[in-house]
């Protein structure tokens, strides 16, 4: 039997990528592939991202959910919020299970066993899955260029197991596996694995981008670009977790902007055609990291020197994106110009709530 040509979707870009203020965009599709009523925490960044991503993708979509909060808290008691097909997979199987789904549709359509347009295939992997235990499987799927999108919803920790350090947890981040103490006052001593850049550098034929829930239209357009790209795509999306970051729940989107404005979460795209990074995304303003850190209990133990270390890190990120660093931020990288985040007791109290 002659092979049947596989037809693929082309999703239009959304206008007004209004990066700054909160807004309503009438172009957004009405469809809700991810419906409310699940059991994630109030203000859960990963769920906000889930809704945006699935809205951007639309109904001809299959979702893959490796173990993590977006599986456990979403699909409780055999009741799930997914209005499109969804399957759980093992935490280390994010890339591989997704590859199987993509391969199945390639073969089934080509062999006339399934008729229709190739679906969007999206994997929603946590940072623990994507940067640690499932790293090889994600890399395998990207390398082999299956037509799919693998998202790392990055809440910078293993949230579902009760907040443990992952290789995405920032320097200074307190988790139950990286608590502060007299010997380790800064808590997490290592800097996060630059996962998205690894994926871009190692799989240059793929569309790779970073995004944040603070910029919904940018996020959704990148999801659509990633889906329109024929082949594999990878996105790493900043998704704050109030349980682990310890902040006031209405501030998820604010944090999604502050993390970018403070230079701690560079937003960029890797163009697989030009083989170039696109650093043209600019937040409305640039701020010292302390403005981002002070909203979160997980940084409550930091001393001036640790904050200075994080500011140096942020300044390096700005430099990497060819952004001139204002004098104020250079000053902010000197501990002499900074104060401790809070008293030791305040930090200890926060540790109890994690």
């Amino acid at each position, binding site marked *: 039997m002659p092979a049947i040509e596989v037809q693929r979707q082309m999703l239009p870009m959304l206008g007004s990528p209004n990066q700054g203020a909160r807004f309503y965009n009438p172009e957004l599709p009405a469809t809700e592939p991810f419906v409310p009523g699940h059991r994630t925490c109030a203000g859960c960044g990963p769920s906000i991202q889930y809704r945006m991503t699935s809205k951007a993708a639309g109904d001809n979509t299959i979702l893959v959910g490796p173990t993590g909060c977006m599986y456990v808290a979403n699909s409780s*008691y055999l009741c799930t919020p997914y209005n499109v097909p969804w399957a759980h*997979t093992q935490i280390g*199987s994010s890339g*591989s299970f997704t590859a*199987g*789904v993509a*391969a*199945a549709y390639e073969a089934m359509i080509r062999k006339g066993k399934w008729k229709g347009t190739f679906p969007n295939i999206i994997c929603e992997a946590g940072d623990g899955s994507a940067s640690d235990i499932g790293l090889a499987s994600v890399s*395998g799927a990207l390398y082999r260029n299956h037509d799919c999108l693998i998202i790392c919803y990055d809440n910078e920790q293993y949230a579902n197991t009760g907040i443990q350090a992952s290789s995405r947890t920032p320097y200074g981040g307190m988790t139950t596996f990286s608590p502060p103490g007299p010997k380790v006052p800064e808590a997490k001593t290592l800097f996060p694995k630059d996962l998205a850049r690894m994926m871009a550098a190692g799989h240059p034929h793929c569309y790779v981008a970073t995004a944040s829930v603070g910029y919904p239209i940018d996020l959704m357009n990148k999801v659509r670009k990633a889906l329109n790209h024929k082949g594999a795509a990878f996105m790493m999306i900043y998704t704050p977790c109030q349980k682990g970051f310890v902040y006031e729940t209405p501030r998820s989107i604010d944090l999604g902007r502050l993390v970018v404005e403070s230079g701690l979460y560079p937003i960029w795209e890797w163009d697989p055609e030009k083989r170039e990074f696109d650093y043209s995304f600019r937040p409305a303003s640039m701020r010292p990291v302390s403005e981002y850190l002070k909203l979160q209990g997980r940084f409550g133990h930091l001393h001036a020197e640790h904050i200075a270390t994080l500011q140096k890190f942020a300044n390096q990120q700005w430099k990497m994106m060819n952004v001139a660093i204002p004098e104020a931020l250079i000053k902010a990288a000197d501990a002499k110009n900074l104060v401790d985040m809070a008293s030791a007791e305040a930090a200890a109290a926060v540790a109890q709530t994690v």
Partner: protein
Amino acid sequence: MATATAGKKKTVRINGCVASAQAAKYADVDVIAAYPIRPYTATMMALAQMVANGELDAEYIVADSEHSQLSIAHGAASCGARVFTGSSGVGVQFAFELYSPISGARMPVQMMIADRTLDPPGDFGSEHTEALSTRDMGWLMGWSCDAQEAFDNHLMAYRIGEDPRVLLPQMVCQDGFFVSHITTDCELPDPGQVKEFLPPYKHPYPLDPRHPVSHGPQIMPEQGPPLQLERARAMEGAMPVIEEIHDQFARIFGRRYDPWLEEYMTDDAEVVFFLQGAHGVTARHAIRHMRARGAKVGMVRLRTYRPYPTEQVAASLSKFKVVGVIETNMGLGSVSSGGSLYAEAVAALYEVPKRPLVFSFMAGMGGEAIVMKEFYWMTNKMIEAQKRGKIEKRAHWVGFEE
């Protein structure tokens, strides 16, 4: 029907690995997930060539690990694709996490295993320990003893596993080297026969955007018992289907296998070997020799290990005075301090009023051939036990004892 289309069948000389690849081709698999490890690799090499030649239209995925192979298989089967994968030795265990999720999701993934000893010490020979270690994960499982049986078992396993009454994954095992790399005559069927025997795979609830379903959501403990019971029932419920499919296979292909046990020279036997896999071939030969010297010895070869044919094993083994279990697997610290076949054989016999004496032979470990001399020695041990009316010990290490 069989004779009408039998015109295009042919007999070829191939080894077990190639027989497995041929079976996957005849089954028109959609997705293949490969990762290299000896000795099963040759199956994937053969399939790669078939795809490259355009003889088989399938997505051939070079996975990044066995864990990924099985996850790819899981994902693809969840969409309704027919999937083929495989492994050997430590590779089988690297994928261990996936066995329960795949059977729990009731995905009839097929996995070819060419057995290989686990590490240490990096030995290539056949031992069944790797596959047997997955025995309680909800996969149908059985051993072939030659290339033809391997080919046939692959087709039957797809047909059984994909049956809507069963929907379970299958491990189709063959001994590394003794089957996987020994060339024998193998009859390849007419494609029309396969078409008649094996309908296209159709999962009742695939991941299909037109009919959204959720696979594998979280449960609370109280939702566990019914789900686990359902999987247990699927295993038990497979038994009549297995018998039915073996009958159909015999009708269409003209080769009849007892689904559970092969009995060899057991009519008047008093002592029997109980084993599975390739050593059955040597055993048949040895039994003929020993019978010529007057020993009333036979063989019972287990063909299906999961679901375990408890009644059939009990009915068969209780006919004899002594049963010598040839293990070819390690059950370190197990009930017999030998292998793991013993425990289930003994358990199957427990309700039988007249039980035979049962003990294990630890033979062929590390993939060593079990030679005729050792079969004679084992036969003598069984005859001695029969005379004594009592076993000497539960497990004998063959070659290390007088």
